[in-house]
Structure formats: C-alpha cells, structure tokens
C-alpha cells in the first residue's frame, strides 16, 4: 500500500456512516460537476469547448433538477460575465472552459479579482498556444492561470490527478472562493478530465462546505461593501437585498465607488494580493509519498502525478529511495512547503506537460536549484512512467 499522507487540515472528514456509500464510475469532468453540486453550485454559464464540454452537458441536465440555473451563453466572454452577475445576486457560480476559452475569459476574471466576486473557473487544459491540440493533453496554462489577466492581483489555482480528487478539490475550490471572495481556477487537464474511474461520492456533511459570509449591518445603516474585516474577509450583501451599493472594476473606496486617491489605491491592491498570498500556507493542498528518506524527489501535479506515483511505487519495491510530492495547490505557489519537503533530496525531478512552468517555480523555491530537473512531454501524449524513469536514470548516471 502507498504511504500517502495528505496536506489537508485534519478533521474535515467526519466518520463515515455505516450506510452503503454511493459509488459511481465517472469521468473527471463529471466528478467536477458532482463536486460543484455538492458544494452548492446554483449557477453555471458556459460555452462548449473540448475537452471541458462534458461539464456543461452534465450541468445542463442536473442543475435544473436542483432548481439551479444553467445557461449556454453566446461566447466564453459572456459566460464569465454572467457568472460575475449571478454571483453578485448570491449564487455560487461556475464556468468551465479550455485554453482558447480561458484566454477569452481573462478580462472578466480580472473583474472578479478586482470586485472580489466569488466564482470558480474550470480549465481542462489542452495543447496550446492558440487552437493548439484540441483533443490532446497539456499543462501549458499554469502561468496564464496566475497572470492571464492584466495588472497586479492574486488568484488561487488548484489541480487534481484522479476522479476522486477532482470531486474533493472542486468542493475545496468553492470553499476558498466563497471564503475569500476570489475567483478560484481549477486547472485540470484532458487526461484527468476524460479519464473514467471510481468515485465514492461523499455524503452530505462529510466534506466541509463553506458558505458566503453576510453582513450584519441593518437596513438604513451605512454598509461598507469593500471594507475588509481584520481577517481580510468581506461580509457580503446580495443584489436585490437591503443594501444598494456599487461594484466596479475601477479602483474603489470602501463604498465601492471609483477612486484614484493614492492611499486608497494602494490599500486596495495590497488587500487583494495579501488576502491570498498571506494565506499561502493555509491554501496549500498536496499529497506526499515516501518523502522521509527520499534521495530523489519527484514533484508533479495533474495527470503526470499518476505516472510519477506508479514509478515511485515500482522503484520503492526495488529498494530505491524515491519519493513524490503531488501539488494540488499551484497558486499561491507553496514555495516554503516545497523547500522543506525537498531539503534533503539529492535530485528533484519536476514532471509536467509543459516547457517547465512549475520547474521554474521549484528552482526559485529550493535550496539547490542546480539539482532541479524538468521531465516533460509537450507532444500531446501523456507523460508516462518510462519518460520519467529515463530522465532519472540519466541524471543518476545509471544510463538511459
């Protein structure tokens, strides 16, 4: 058996009741749908795009049954905009897309950052740039997820490598979005999105579900929609409720009205960045395998983490001191965690399906960046255990 330990806050999983669990055999995209509904999704707007379309298709069927709203908008931009509007009305809201659509959504993602609108954006990654490889896997959007929209800001990006994890990380994504009033990007990839495997659906109450924090300010009393509490959280009031306030993508004061006052501008940008970056340790989700005595540590995320895990189990059985850290939070990048977990490693191999986007971050994070090696594939084919094994053997001086 694996020696997995998770980086989640303990105590979130209550004792499972004795009743038979609901078990399904589903695609990652469907697990995302079920996770979103579990988290209380009430509004989905989208536009079809491979390889994320199944998310829209399943929600078109399931959301009306739960009394929620599904709408297929005229384009990717409109979908993201509609999500912003619905969220301000109080709905937990989500959209789903892939590379080209993700590029188009960046404008409104920036709006959601600035106006602190909770929402979830799923990007099931395919090959890029441009139309790229519509039906093939890649992980080239790591940096775009962080910096795709213009201007300084911060954002949360989560990922997963199995159908079960997609379900749980989707719930987590909504929790973070609602708690910190931020867009959260679920950065999956074509392989995990389309892969079918077992999903044990958690019972209601088994996973923590966070709801929006509402203001206690009474009608007729001044409500400051953009005055954060000491803990950085902003109590909400829905459009249609008793407090009528302004929301804008411009820099704004505590009432939500535009300002160019340097003090207020500075305060807001620091708040937007700090509310996430200062919580990097709280937002970090990861899994680790055999790190205690590992000489060689593989760091991976998404579908390549499965190949890495296979390789690690295989080599452990032969006595090799190989370990794996699988990131589920990519942004804010858990640099301290990566540094600590790899402190005693001779070599660090970053397995990812791009030209080294996370590798760069790992090099910045670790004590000895010269011992960080990229293991990648960017040809639309899933990175397999042999790919990782060959690079490792070469670096270890043991031949190809």
């Amino acid at each position, binding site marked *: 058996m694996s020696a997995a330990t998770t980086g989640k806050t303990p105590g979130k999983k209550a004792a499972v009741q004795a009743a038979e669990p609901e078990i399904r055999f589903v695609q990652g995209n469907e697990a995302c749908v079920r996770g979103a509904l579990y988290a209380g999704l009430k*509004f989905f707007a989208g536009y079809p795009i491979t390889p994320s379309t199944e998310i829209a298709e399943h929600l078109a069927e399931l959301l009306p*049954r739960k009394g929620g709203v599904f709408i297929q908008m005229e384009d990717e931009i*409109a979908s993201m905009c509609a999500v912003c*509007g619905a969220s301000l009305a*109080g709905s937990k809201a989500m959209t789903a897309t892939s590379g080209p659509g993700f590029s188009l959504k960046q404008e409104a993602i920036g709006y959601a950052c600035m106006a602190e609108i909770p929402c979830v954006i799923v990007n099931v990654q395919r090959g890029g740039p441009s139309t790229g490889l519509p039906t093939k896997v890649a992980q080239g959007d790591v940096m775009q997820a962080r910096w795709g929209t213009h201007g300084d800001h911060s954002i949360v990006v989560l990922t997963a490598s199995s159908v079960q994890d997609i379900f749980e990380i989707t719930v987590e994504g909504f929790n973070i979005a609602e708690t910190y009033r931020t867009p959260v990007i679920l950065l999956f990839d074509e392989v995990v999105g389309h892969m079918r495997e077992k999903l044990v659906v958690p019972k209601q109450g088994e996973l923590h579900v966070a709801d929006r924090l509402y203001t206690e300010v009474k009608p007729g009393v001044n409500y400051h929609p953009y005055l954060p509490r000491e803990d950085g959280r902003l109590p909400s009031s829905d*459009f249609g409720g008793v407090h009528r306030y302004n929301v804008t993508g411009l820099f704004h004061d505590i009432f939500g009205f535009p300002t160019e006052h340097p003090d207020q501008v500075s305060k807001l940008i620091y708040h937007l960045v700090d509310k996430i970056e200062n919580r990097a340790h709280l937002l970090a989700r990861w899994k680790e395998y055999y790190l205690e005595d590992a000489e060689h540590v593989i760091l991976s995320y998404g579908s390549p983490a499965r190949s890495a895990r296979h390789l690690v189990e295989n080599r452990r059985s032969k006595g090799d001191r190989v370990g794996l850290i699988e990131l589920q939070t990519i942004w804010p990048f858990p640099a301290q965690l990566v540094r600590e977990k790899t402190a005693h490693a001779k070599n660090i191999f970053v397995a990812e399906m791009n030209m080294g986007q996370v590798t760069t971050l790992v090099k910045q994070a670790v004590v000895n960046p010269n011992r960080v090696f990229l293991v990648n594939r960017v040809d639309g084919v899933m990175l397999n255990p042999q790919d990782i094994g060959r690079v490792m053997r070469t670096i270890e001086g043991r031949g190809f």
Partner: protein
Amino acid sequence: MAVKDYIRDRFFPHIWCPGCGHGIVLNALLHAVDELALDRSSLCMVSGIGCSARISGYVGFHSMHTMHGRALACATGLKMARPSLNVFVPMGDGDATAIGGNHFIHACRRNIDITAIVLNNQIYGMTGGQYSPLSGPGILATTAPYRSIDAAFDIVNLAMGAGATFVARTTSFHVKEIADLLKKAVLHKGISVVEVMVQCPTYFGRKNKIGGPVEIMEYFREHTAPLGSKKLEENPELIPRGIFREETRPEYCEEYAAIVTRVRE
C-alpha cells in the same frame, strides 16, 4: 417620492460635459422609475464602460459598473440568478454595437426581461472623439480626420432583426417621450431596446461644426418624426421615432423556470 431620492447626490455635479445628452436620459429614466413606483430593492443598473456607463454610479440602485461591452452579459447572469430584479442596462455606441455587439444581439434573441437603453451619440466620447459604428459615413472624428467611410448600424433594425420584442427610438429633445417609452419598456415582459439619440456637444458637435447642445437638439427636432405621422409620410427622409415593435413572446427567465418546474427533483 421625488427623482432626487433615486440618486447618489454626493457625486453631483456629475462628470458629464455641459449640455451632454446623457444627463437628460438619466433624468427621464428617474422620472419613469419614480412614476412606476417600483420596489427599490429590485432596481439594478448594470453598465459597461464609457460616458454612458457612469450612469450606474449616480443612481441609488444596486449598481454594477462592468467591462466595456459586457454589461448585458453580466446583467443576464444577474437576472437569471434573481428574476425578480428590475435590470436596466445603459449602453453607449461601443457597448451596444462594437465591442458588445455580440452580447447585444444575443440578449435580443433570448428575450430576457432587461431594459436596454442605447445612448447613441455617434461618437466615442470618453476616449476623446473617435468614430463609432453609429457615426456613419462623412463624419469627422479624431480617428477619421478625412471623414469616416464606415456605414452606421441602425439600432432599431439591428434589435428587431435580432428578435427583440420591444424596440423604440426617440431623442434627447423629446424628453417626455423618453420617459414614456422607458416606462413602457420597463413594463414590457422581455427584452426592451430603447434607442435615444443624444448629443455629444464636446466631440461630435464641435468637430462636425453642428454647434452646441441646443443646435444638436434642434437638429433632432427637425430631422425626426413620429411613426405614423403625417410629417413622416410627407418627409420619408426623416428619422422615425416611436415604438417600432411591441410583441409578446415567451420571456427567457420564465421559460427556464418552466423547465425547472417540470424536471425538479
């Protein structure tokens, strides 16, 4: 209640230029809302970017100042999530017919119950007087120093072609007509598009040597005529005003609610 009760008066005097038609439309809109005595907590103003978009900050509604051209898309999400809201979307030339053109035709097609007001001043004002899809050929603008060669959209025909169920046009000279049309637009179930031809004295009027606000408004008085009027019949070259279409078609939120009723677990 008085019109003053619907504005955020601490932001007045507003930022619009002296004689700007946008203030007249805001004024008429507030009179319309006041006369209809709508539930104040239902009032939402969703705007895009530009001079027209500043309306959202001035009204004491739930107000969402969004991105250029995206107001209708944001408003669609808002309205679908909470259909009881009364949603107004003021748009300028760019919001409605350029960068937001796609959202405009699709909102018309869906027939979602939103009041869309197009403030047509034939120019991009906030950025300093560039030509717009509503300028038409022969217009001088900072990006058309040798006169524009682009044909203009006819907003009424565009909205009707896209399937809007309430379509009307008036001008900033016809102030009572603006308020009347807006009242009818709000009460109409489905998308309503009201085009108001407004003056931009600063960039359009000055650049094209038409004159100040009064001269442009006089132009509106002389070059338009009510639909079905003798004046229009005798002078078919005039721009028609009035209600071009007012028809009943299933409204989008209601149609969706019917699906929910049918399939709800």
